[in-house]
């Protein structure tokens, strides 16, 4: 028997130890896992210098205009200024194909390529332009489909060049990838007949429309809209051209412009000079292109040596002769579009000669006259890597998969292995302000997915952290006071029996699954609140007011009756204030709406009707309320007590009621006057944004979240604080009562301070719950990642964001890892909160021993 007891004890100890250690290990493993997925985000990019090699021989006579790499990183193409196009292998620099692109038209006099696409436009001396494509076309074929000659020339390394095609044997047996140059120019388009085109650019707009801008030798700037028409019989494509010209945009005496770009949406054309000046034309309206502004793109006397678009053809990248890269994009302001300089990156030391945008992200390859190259992430202002091409760089390219970088020069092409890591997710981008394209200023933005290829993920965690804290704040604001007051009330004022049943009732509340709460919030509560917003808000005022009023009225009741009402009946009377308050709020909502909010609160919140004063009044009401309570306790109450010694009960009660009503009125009046004063001085909370708690209303608002999540955290805060309060030794209460303290005084001065650490830890546990809560915020908010304290708009929390986006994030992508980082952040937040709660509770436990 004794032996078995010893065994049982040992087994119990072992299992408890195992359980404890296991829990610690499990939590640590979760942490390590989250960490290991998130941490590569902060790895740095590499241009692998070791792998740099010359891929072809180069051509001293002719300059490279454009170049590119095929999808698989096997082939390079380059277009020279004589109109010749070469395709070579990356590995050996062997020539695969050569093509005289322009043919009889001769060397192009102007050229442009749309970043991230294969679309090109060339301009010629005869005033024509030709649009076309340059790329590499690959197809998969089986071994018996390819020519025998190719099979015969297959090299040891599994590929060969045969008849202008590149064959690569794939690991899957018998499968060969065949890649060929795919380049063609369309028919000449008469742009400015007979006058040499000096600058040209094109954009493909939605609906198949092509837009062209061209600057001709006679100083004409033309805008051309082309609609392709395909002849069904011949298969030939002809263009219907609409022309709009600004003749003598540049007169003979002016310096010649050196760059011309047309934005991807066809709205803006930029004509730039070497001195850094750019003219920004609005070319949306084909019939009336107009000059919007003239801007200095380079600082000081720096020369503009390169200008091209970033992916998406909206942001202008400008390189100067000091090696500085600047990014400009138009933002909408009061008078239309204005160019702003969003980024300035000191990436190289010599004159920038070429800027080549990647086709999948905001990374560009920049080369300079001294032969240096740099890979730059434009949005985060970061130079990812630098290297040396050992010759002036004429053109550059980044492969479609961002695994190769190429610099073209007179001595041939240099190729690097590129490892960009996760350039969008720098520490600065995740937690700092970033100026994204098209935004009027730098900001915190979360927008992980978008519709277009050129969409840039915006991965600031700040809106999510903000949303988490906002949801927590409002739910604590609503739930914590109710929970704590309820705990104080039940531990200090209720009989043990009533307390026990109340406690079990509240614990049932805790058992409600949060998805049910979220469901109710989204489908029942949110629409209800929207329809009765003012009434709901007035409840916050009316229910406490009615409760206090009932308290005052109860003093009229004869003492003998009052004694009989002690306990449960009193509680029931207190509970009665809830329906009465709601009824009062309902009754008041129409007159209040008419009197203060122009008849419609939602419109008022939107700033469409009414003045600013009510907003300030609402904000100031609690301040004045607290002021009134303090004034009452300091000055009125002692005097009243002194005076009322001789008075009858009814008279004392009447005086109390009078003072209560008077002070309430005074509070409202004071807040109104102060609010009107501030409004008169010109502040309006509705349009303030930022920390202003009011603003435009949306149905899934923080108010709903505050309510419902507040409701969800009440049980945990209530239970834990009630425990803390009940564990305050009774002899302290007795000591206080014996001194003549009332129950409230005893609660406020002895019990609550003694249990303060326990209550604090209860709050922290509630806070932890609110921070991590997912379902309610997911369902009850609009999940809009905005950073405003506005009680009436939505929010997006870390937890809801993870729940929404993780299923659709591509594994190991930046987005995926960022979501893990969000999880890690959430974990850290709840960990800090819970640790704080626990350490306070430990401290409390130590102190409780002394009592």
């Amino acid at each position: 028997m004794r032996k078995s007891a010893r065994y049982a004890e040992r087994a119990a100890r072992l299992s408890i130890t195992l359980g404890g250690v296991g829990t610690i290990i499990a939590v640590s493993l979760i942490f390590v896992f989250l960490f290991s997925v998130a941490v590569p985000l902060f790895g740095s990019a590499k241009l692998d210098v070791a792998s740099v090699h010359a891929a072809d021989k180069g051509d001293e006579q002719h300059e490279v205009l454009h170049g590119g790499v095929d999808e698989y990183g096997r082939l390079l193409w380059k277009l020279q200024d004589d109109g010749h196009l070469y395709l070579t292998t990356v590995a050996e620099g062997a020539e695969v194909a050569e093509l005289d692109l322009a043919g009889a038209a001769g060397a192009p006099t102007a050229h442009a390529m749309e970043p991230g696409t294969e679309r090109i436009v060339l301009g010629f001396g005869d005033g024509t332009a030709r649009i076309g494509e340059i790329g590499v076309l690959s197809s998969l074929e089986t071994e018996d489909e390819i020519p025998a000659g190719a099979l015969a020339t297959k090299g040891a390394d599994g590929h060969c060049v045969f008849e202008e095609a590149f064959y690569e044997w794939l690991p899957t047996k018998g499968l060969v990838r065949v890649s060929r140059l795919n380049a063609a120019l369309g028919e000449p388009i008469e742009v400015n007949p007979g006058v040499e085109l000096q600058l040209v650019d094109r954009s493909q707009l939605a609906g198949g429309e092509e837009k062209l801008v061209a600057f001709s030798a006679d100083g004409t700037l033309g805008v051309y809209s082309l609609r392709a028409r395909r002849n069904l019989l011949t298969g030939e494509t002809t263009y219907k051209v609409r022309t709009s010209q600004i003749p003598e945009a540049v007169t003979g005496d002016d310096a010649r412009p050196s760059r011309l770009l047309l934005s991807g949406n066809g709205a803006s054309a930029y004509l730039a000079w070497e001195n850094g000046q750019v003219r920004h034309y609005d070319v949306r309206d084909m019939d009336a292109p107009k000059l919007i502004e003239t801007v200095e793109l380079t600082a000081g006397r720096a020369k503009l040596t390169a200008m091209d678009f970033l992916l998406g053809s909206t942001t202008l990248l400008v390189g100067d002769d000091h090696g500085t890269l600047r990014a400009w994009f138009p933002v909408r302001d009061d008078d239309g579009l204005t160019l702003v300089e969003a980024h300035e990156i000191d990436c190289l030391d010599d004159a920038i000669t070429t800027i080549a945008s990647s086709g999948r992200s905001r990374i560009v390859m920049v080369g300079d006259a001294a032969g240096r190259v740099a890979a730059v992430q434009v949005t985060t202002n970061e130079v990812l890597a630098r290297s040396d091409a050992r010759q002036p760089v004429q053109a550059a390219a980044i492969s479609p998969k961002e695994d190769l970088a190429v610099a073209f020069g007179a001595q041939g092409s240099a190729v690097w292995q590129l490892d960009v890591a996760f350039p969008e997710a720098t520490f600065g981008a995740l937690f700092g302000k970033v100026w994204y394209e098209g935004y009027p200023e730098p900001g915190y933005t979360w927008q992980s997915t978008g519709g277009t290829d050129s969409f840039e993920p915006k991965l600031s965690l700040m809106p999510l952290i903000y949303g988490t804290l906002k949801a927590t704040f409002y739910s604590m604001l609503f739930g914590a006071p109710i929970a704590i007051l309820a705990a104080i009330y039940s531990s200090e004022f209720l009989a043990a029996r009533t307390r026990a049943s109340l406690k079990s009732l509240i614990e049932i509340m805790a058992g409600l699954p949060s998805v049910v709460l979220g469901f109710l919030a989204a489908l029942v509560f949110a629409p209800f609140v929207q329809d009765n917003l003012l009434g709901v808000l007035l409840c916050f005022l009316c229910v406490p007011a009615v409760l206090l009023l009932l308290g005052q009225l109860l003093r009229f009741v004869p003492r003998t009756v009052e004694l009989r009402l002690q306990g449960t009946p009193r509680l029931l009377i207190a509970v009665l204030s809830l329906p009465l308050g709601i009824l009062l709020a309902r009754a008041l909502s129409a007159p209040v709406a008419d009197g203060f909010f122009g008849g419609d609160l939602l419109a008022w919140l939107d700033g469409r009707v009414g003045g600013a004063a009510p907003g300030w009044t609402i904000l100031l009401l609690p301040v004045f309320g607290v002021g009134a309570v303090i004034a009452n306790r300091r000055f009125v109450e002692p005097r009243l007590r002194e005076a009322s010694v001789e008075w009858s009960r009814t008279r004392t009660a009447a005086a109390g009621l009078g003072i209560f009503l008077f002070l309430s009125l005074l509070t409202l009046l004071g807040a109104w006057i102060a609010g009107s004063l501030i409004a008169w001085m010109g502040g309006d909370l509705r349009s303030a944004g930022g920390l202003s708690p009011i603003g435009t209303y949306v149905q899934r608002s923080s108010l709903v979240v505050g309510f419902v999540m507040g409701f969800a955290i009440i049980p945990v805060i209530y239970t834990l604080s009630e425990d803390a309060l009940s564990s305050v030794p009774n002899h302290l209460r007795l000591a206080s009562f014996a001194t003549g303290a009332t129950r409230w005084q005893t609660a406020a001065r002895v019990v609550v301070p003694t249990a303060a650490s326990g209550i604090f830890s209860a709050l922290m546990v509630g806070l932890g719950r609110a921070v991590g809560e997912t379902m309610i915020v997911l369902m009850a908010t609009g999940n809009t990642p905005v950073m405003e304290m506005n009680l009436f708009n939505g929010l997006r929390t870390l937890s809801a964001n993870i729940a929404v986006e993780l299923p659709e994030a591509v594994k190991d992508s930046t987005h995926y890892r960022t979501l893990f980082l969000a999880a890690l952040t959430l974990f850290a937040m709840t960990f800090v909160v819970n640790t704080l709660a626990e350490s306070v509770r430990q401290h409390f436990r130590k102190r409780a021993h002394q009592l």
Partner: protein
Amino acid sequence: MFTQNSKMEEELTPHSDPSGKLPARDPGTAATTGGTAPIGGVFEAISRGESFVTETHEELAAEDPVVGIEDFDLHYGATQALFGVSMCVPRGKVTALIGPSGCGKSTLLRSVNRMNDLIDGVQTDGKMTLNGDSIYGRKVDVIELRKRIGMVFQKPNPFPMSIYENVIYSLRIDGVRDKNLLDEVCELSLKGAGLWDEVKDRLNSNALRMSGGQQQRLCIARAIAAEPEVLLLDEPCSALDPIATGKIEDLIDQLRGHYSILMVTHNMQQASRTSDYTAFMYLGRLVEYGPTGEIFMQPKLRETEDYVTGRFG
């Protein structure tokens, strides 16, 4: 039904059998109460539920009562804990309540400042006055009443706050904000409780860091800070070691004259050392009440003598 009624009546009828079988006692003092003890001794009479009249010594008639108790009954729900207690607490004197445990000493003490109101199901009957003002009257504000009475409990129960805040607690709840007044009251009360020299340098340190004896004296300081009209001490030394007990007893001695003290004690020596008057209680009745010397040396009832000499209890 009928028989039951008559039985109850019999029980409720006061027993007025004149005594002849009581032990010899001083005939001079017996006259004050017209003491009539039932046959078979007071204890048997009490345990039979019979009523009797407290043996109150005549010296008490000359005293000025601070608290007057007349025919006071108290029920804890269905069980009666005090039976027709009548006594007065003389002004400026120390009065000790002795008796075996469970006899209702604490209950009686708590009745004076109506701490029993806090217990569910307590019902009282009879009259009690504090300096002539009714304690259980209908219009009495308990809060105001308790402010006039100081109380010290068996176990030291300082609040978990600073020594200073503990002492001036009663003033704080009265809303006194005058810092000078608070400082003055704190110093006077601590001096009054003989604690000033020990703690004057650490008034802001937590009271829980003091020793048990110091804590109990702090509780006394807290009680006298409110200038109470009567001070109730419920076995103030029972949780303390002998040295601390000695200090408290010295303190009680010093408070004599300034305060009217009603003290419950379990310890006969303590009662005889510190009190001016002693009241002996038994099973909810006040059995004998007189000057401490007489109660201990020449009690009028043999039962009192048995108790104080330790023959039972």
